[in-house]
């Protein structure tokens, strides 16, 4: 029982990660792949934040009368990672748009067929 209480958070995060991973490898459509990548990424963020949590702690903004704070370091790492994540997502999406211009489709198997034809 204590195993479940100790680890349930990590397990669900792993499940979410795998859902994102499945979308990335099985989806044909590039936009959906990007969505899957983002789901994966958000789950990784959640894993980090879960590690930083201290039970009984509170948010790491100092107020009077509180001594137990959660770990601020993962928060810093993830905060910047989120902004960088959206920037890289934008690069990915603009690549998708270029592929659409070049091949007329964003389905992976279709433009691979076109590549083979050339």
């Amino acid at each position, binding site marked *: 029982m204590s195993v479940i209480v100790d680890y349930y958070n990590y397990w669900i995060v792993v499940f979410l990660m795998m859902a994102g991973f499945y979308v990335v490898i099985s989806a044909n459509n590039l936009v959906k792949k990007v969505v899957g990548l983002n789901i994966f990424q958000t789950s990784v963020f959640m894993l980090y934040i879960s590690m930083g949590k201290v039970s009984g702690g*509170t*948010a790491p*903004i100092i*107020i009077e009368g509180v001594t137990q704070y959660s770990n601020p370091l993962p928060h810093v790492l993830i905060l910047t990672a989120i902004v960088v994540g959206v920037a890289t997502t934008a690069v990915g999406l603009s690549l998708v748009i270029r592929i659409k211009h070049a091949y007329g489709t964003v389905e992976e198997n279709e433009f691979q067929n076109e590549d083979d034809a050339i």
Partner: protein
Amino acid sequence: MTGVLTATCIAILVVMAMALARALKAPTVYDRILGVNMFGTKTVLFIAVVGYMTGRPDFLDIAIVYALISFIGMVAVLRFFEYTAPIE
């Protein structure tokens, strides 16, 4: 008083779950958007109540951001929706 806030919090969670269910089920796309919209407003309330429940209500900033961003998301959906052909 914390008991009342906790109860409110859980009730809002149930409402959010029902809005989510509508967004997942959704016969039409409009139903999904409606579900997302209601989910957004209830989320704002949820954050506010959680802030009071945990005794640190200075995090209401996040609720404001939620309210603003979910509105922008709605507008974006309406804006780009007209470019795409309906499925149903």
